[in-house]
């Protein structure tokens, strides 16, 4: 409840166009020259001291990427991206693999403060003992601070930058990298495979329940730097992990491309819960300067009775192209997708999920809440598929859209395909508007139009917010209010 009140305060305190996180930290970058070719791919690989197999893997991806074309099917519209006009590598100069937080640039710590990273996590970054959220902070392309490794390693959990895992756990990386999102999966994923900068690596050994929520904050900081994060999470038999991802970005005039890949693997009886709060710069009121977010996120329920759950709160970016999906390969495996996607101003969102039922008695659940305001466009695109052998497959889908004002658009595009006559797929969809009656009722009780809108929207997304870990939910509520700023007259 406090969060609602805080939400309301936040709405008031933010000016139109004054993106709260629009600032730039000046840490000098060590850049590769602009553009992309085989030498750049080799440069990236060499900078990270990668083994030959990985260099080859990248080069193979690069060569395949050259033969591909950008996908055009999404309901998004943006100027042509000049891939030769981007930087593909940058790292803070101070980076020399700090052994403790004292070695971390104070500028960076200040940045976290401005980002409003929860106090507990800032304490961890400041070296205070006792808190329980581990932060693997990704600053620009290279991870510069990793905490609580020891406690995690006592449990046998590996949580480190993927660039490090390549050296410390080569067999795991080599076995699983690209095993969920193949190198040639799609244009952006292939590009990522060629030039991925860094990201998180998580391995939970058999039977282990990860002792804390794992959390990563992403941040795009270099002008013209494409961001190509790569995350790989493996939950071995009977293990459990909850992973939180959140990010904000500084204000920029030029559009920034982000093409991340996240791969999740759940073996027998394992469970992965992956939560995202995404708040990248959406562009100004004319739609200039926002982030292009083309992400490939996919989980593979490889083992029987495994479970993968995606929860996302999408409020930022100029363009979002994102479909966290589940491959339900193991018998009795389960996939879940809970999503809140908010678009305002001139934002374009095309997001949804895929649930691919391959195993027997597999179940999936999709709850999507889309909120469109301003002149934005918000599309839910979802695919539910049952393989011929997927006896007993069941899906439940619920897509609700809420419109604020008359200039925005909401679209629902469900693709349903069942090759097994026993599969049961249910689909519900609603589109509604915040009514004058609701607004007036709330305002009569003392809420301003903006406060009333935030409250009503928070009610609309409640089912999904409840899926988020507590602290994340509070943060998400704030973001919702901030992103609806200026949506009511």
């Amino acid at each position, binding site marked *: *409840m406090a969060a609602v009140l805080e939400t309301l305060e936040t709405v008031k305190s933010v000016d139109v166009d004054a993106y709260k996180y629009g600032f730039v930290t000046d840490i000098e970058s060590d850049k590769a020259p602009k553009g992309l070719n085989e030498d750049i791919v080799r440069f990236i690989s060499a900078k990270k001291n990668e083994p030959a197999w990985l260099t080859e893997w990248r080069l193979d991806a690069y060569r395949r990427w050259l033969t591909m074309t950008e996908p055009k099917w999404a309901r998004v519209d943006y100027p042509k991206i000049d891939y030769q006009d981007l930087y593909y590598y940058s790292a803070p100069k101070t980076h020399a693999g700090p052994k403790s937080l004292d070695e971390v640039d104070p500028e960076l710590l200040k940045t976290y403060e401005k980002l409003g990273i929860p106090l507990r996590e800032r304490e961890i970054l400041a070296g205070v003992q006792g808190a329980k959220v581990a932060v693997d902070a990704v600053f620009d392309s290279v991870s510069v601070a990793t905490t609580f490794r020891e406690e995690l390693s006592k449990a046998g959990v590996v949580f480190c930058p993927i660039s490090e895992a390549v050296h410390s756990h080569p067999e795991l990386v080599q076995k699983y990298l690209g095993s969920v999102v193949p190198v040639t999966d799609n244009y952006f994923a292939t590009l990522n495979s060629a030039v991925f900068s860094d990201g998180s690596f998580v391995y939970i050994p058999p039977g282990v329940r990860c002792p804390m929520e794992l959390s990563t904050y992403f941040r795009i900081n270099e002008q013209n730097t494409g961001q190509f994060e790569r995350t790989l999470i493996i939950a071995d038999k009977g293990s459990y992990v909850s992973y939180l991802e959140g990010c904000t970005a500084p204000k920029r005039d030029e559009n920034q491309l982000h093409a991340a890949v996240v791969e999740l693997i759940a073996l027998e009886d394992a469970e992965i819960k992956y939560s995202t709060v995404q708040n990248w710069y959406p562009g100004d009121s004319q739609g200039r300067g926002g982030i292009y977010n083309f992400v490939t996120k996919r989980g593979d329920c490889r083992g029987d009775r495994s479970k993968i759950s995606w929860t996302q709160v999408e409020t930022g970016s100029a363009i979002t192209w994102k479909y966290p999906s589940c491959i339900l390969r193991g018998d009795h495996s389960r996939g879940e997708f809970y999503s809140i996607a908010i678009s305002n101003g001139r934002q374009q969102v095309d997001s949804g999920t895929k649930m691919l039922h391959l195993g027997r008695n597999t179940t999936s659940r999709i709850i999507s809440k889309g909120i469109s305001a301003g002149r934005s466009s918000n599309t839910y695109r979802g695919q539910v598929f049952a393989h011929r052998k997927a006896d007993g497959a069941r899906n439940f889908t619920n897509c609700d859209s809420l419109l604020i004002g008359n200039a925005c658009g909401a679209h629902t595009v469900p693709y349903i395909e069942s090759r097994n006559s026993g599969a049961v797929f249910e689909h519900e969809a609603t589109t509604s508007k915040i009514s004058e009656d609701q607004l007036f009722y709330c305002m009569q009780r*003392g809420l*301003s*139009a903006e*406060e009333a809108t935030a409250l009503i929207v928070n009610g*609309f997304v409640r089912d999904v917010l409840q899926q988020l870990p507590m602290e994340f939910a509070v943060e998400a509520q704030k973001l919702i209010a901030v992103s609806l700023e200026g949506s009511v007259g």
Partner: protein
Amino acid sequence: MLEIRNLHAEIDGKKILNGLTLTVKDGEVAAIMGPNGSGKSTLSYVVAGRSDYTVTAGEVFLNGENILELPPHERAARGLFLAFQYPVEIPGVTTHVFLRTALNAQRKARGEAELKTAEFMKLMRAAADKLSVTQEMLRRPLNVGFSGGEKKRLEILQMTLLAPKFGILDETDSGLDIDALRVVSDGVNDLRAPDRGFLVITHYQRLLDHIKPDTVHIMAQGRIIKTGGPELALELEKNGYRDFVADAA
């Protein structure tokens, strides 16, 4: 004190209030009775500031201040409360969260400190008990799936917590059985105070048996056509509106 002077208002080009004048003093309970469609709910909406109505002439003063230019939430913060004829559902927003959000928004607007959770809970429990509003109801989304009677009790609960300077009750008795009518009336009577006025809109004398008005006004075609004491309501009950409306025409 609420003073309405020569109020004219329309919606979608249709004139509904036609020069309505009415004063309700501090401590006074005024009843408005009138046939369906005479503009009673419209009057309550216009006074509370609903934006789809256009005021074409007239003034509305709350404790001496002209409030017609203020948005609804600022009128609320100045102490105006409307118990709706049809309370609105807000899906997903828990009733107690809504109550607390509203109360603190008003307190903030008046420059008062926000209530801490514990203080608020105490206040809410006490008020809820009196109105037979259960804790279970308070945990449900506001007005969603509530019966007509429950919604009306909740309106009075909100009025109790917000402790307004002036309360307008729009057909709060409709949809109430005898027991609920008593609970709701007791709730309103508890709030009667020398510095607080009420405008009670109703069709029926039976509400006025419980909430005894000081003055009774008959409304027709967007105007007050007759004003009197409690006896006027009894007369109406006996003879219906026809004579009054015919006289006025």
